[in-house]
């Protein structure tokens, strides 16, 4: 069955028409290496610096504070490892959360093996960290706080400005993985006291394989990729000009449309959430009811398992996800759902529908019409549900 309704925009998005049109000339026409001196290379250089401006503007930064990378994972790795190495003399303690993306969590584990100490803050039932707990976990040797802007699974948005304020009061650097937030939520790195920020193009209509890291001017950081003098010697490698141009354009578009698009998406999201909770018994919303990404709907259905649900939906042409797409190869229940306190079997029965500009009200209505049957079909097969049904009877 061909996909008709794509509701997995948190996993990845199609490249936007305007973005693809903008990048196309940079493959065959303006293909020069931005580091070269001749004319055709100047087009690349110009495009590079324009995109840097666009990305910077989208988060309230200066162009010179934007460094292009190959994606969110690279940016996350660079932030943690680069700061840990640069500040090794100052301290070895990093604070992050239990619900970060694996690009942060696994880098944290790696750093622990290298002699760092990492605190993974718990979250409440809505997926929020506690500022008091954060403050208590700060030590003299704490060099970095890394808290994601918005969670990729349950959509919860953290109190970023407050975290940034606290970090700066204590003289600690603050990194945020904003891969799910950039282009979807308003961000100002200065107002929010953010020192480092990760983003990834394919989450907002730019291609896969391009990302960026914002590094506040003067912040000490080591490169993750050594080599040529690109990106002011902070990230080597011939610049991915089409990707970079695409990221610039996508950020510019997303930020300019954010106000109207956010309103539209929140309406659709809440219709979807409330509709499902109403129509399907034994269902619960995961994540914060209001402090959540405009497009994120994550619901757990008791007594059924996620993959089966995805397969039935796929058969109807609906693309959705159950937990993070990156880890769907693994069989562990999502660490995020565990962290908000869901029991194992409930965590397994979670469905994530993430909406973006491509989605319509008709699609939401279609899902609302079909989902009760899908859930019921699986529950009828479930030995766990049998007991519940019997009890009721």
């Amino acid at each position, binding site marked *: 069955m061909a996909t008709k309704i794509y509701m997995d925009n948190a996993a990845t998005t199609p490249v936007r028409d305007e973005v693809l049109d903008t990048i196309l000339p940079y493959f065959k026409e303006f293909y020069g290496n931005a580091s070269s*001196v001749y004319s055709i290379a100047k087009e690349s*250089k110009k495009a590079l610096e324009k995109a840097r401006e666009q990305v910077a503007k989208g988060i309230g930064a200066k162009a010179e504070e934007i460094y292009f990378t190959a994606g969110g994972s690279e940016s996350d790795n660079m932030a943690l490892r680069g700061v840990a190495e640069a500040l090794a003399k100052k301290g070895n303690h990093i604070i992050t959360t239990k619900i970060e993306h694996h690009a942060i969590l696994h880098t944290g584990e790696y750093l622990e093996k290298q002699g760092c100490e990492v605190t993974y803050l718990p979250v409440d039932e809505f997926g929020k960290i506690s500022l008091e707990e954060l403050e208590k976990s700060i030590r003299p040797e704490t060099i970095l706080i890394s808290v994601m802007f918005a969670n990729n699974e349950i959509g919860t948005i953290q109190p970023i400005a407050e975290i940034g304020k606290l970090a700066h009061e204590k003289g600690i650097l603050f990194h945020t993985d904003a891969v799910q937030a950039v282009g979807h939520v308003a961000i100002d790195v200065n107002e929010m006291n953010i020192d480092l920020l990760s983003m990834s193009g394919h989450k907002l209509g730019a291609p896969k394989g391009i990302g960026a890291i914002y590094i506040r001017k003067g912040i000490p950081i080591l490169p993750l990729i050594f080599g040529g003098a690109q990106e002011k010697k902070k990230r080597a490698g011939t610049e991915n000009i089409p990707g970079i141009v695409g990221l610039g354009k996508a950020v510019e578009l997303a930020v300019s449309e954010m106000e109207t698009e956010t309103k539209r998406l929140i309406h659709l999201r809440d219709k979807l959430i409330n509709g499902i909770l109403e129509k399907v018994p034994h269902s619960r919303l995961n994540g914060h009811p209001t402090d959540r990404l405009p497009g994120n709907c994550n619901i757990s259905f008791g007594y059924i398992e996620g993959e089966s649900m995805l397969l039935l939906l796929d058969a109807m042409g609906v693309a959705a996800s159950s937990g993070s797409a990156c880890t769907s190869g693994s069989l562990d229940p999502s660490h995020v759902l565990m962290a908000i306190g869901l029991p194992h079997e409930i965590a397994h029965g979670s469905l994530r529908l993430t909406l973006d500009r491509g989605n319509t009200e008709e699609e939401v209505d279609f899902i609302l019409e079909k989902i009760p049957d899908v859930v019921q079909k699986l529950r009828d097969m479930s030995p766990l549900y049998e007991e519940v049904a019997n009890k009721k009877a």
Partner: protein
Amino acid sequence: MEYSEKVMDHFMNPRNVGVIEDASGVGQVGNAKCGDIMKVYLKIEDGRIEDAKFKTFGCGAAVATSSMATELVKGKTIQEALEVTNKAVMEALDGLPPVKVHCSCLAEEALHAALWDYAEKNGVKIEGLKPPVDDVDELHHMENEE
């Protein structure tokens, strides 16, 4: 490298390339930072620079600043010529890319070296002029962005 139109003009059509056979002063300096070299010939009469020529082994910026610097000093008195600093030359060229700022020092220093040579030969003292150095870059600690 993004050079201004003026830089490109002075690079493509450099003024004053050549040698003055009976020069009053000749100065040659090298830039250890990049290995480039510039040589300036001055013809000075009655304390006024009547003619200036150069030869340069260097990048586009080095050639353009050589051309502009020799243009700027022609007709000037020695004291006026001392005001033709690397900054003045850069301004006259509508600026240089940051990594090329050091190239403009070559022109200033070669000019000074030629004036020093003239002073030595003629036993005059030029107020404010320092003896030439081997490595231009020791003088100018340029804030090359990383």
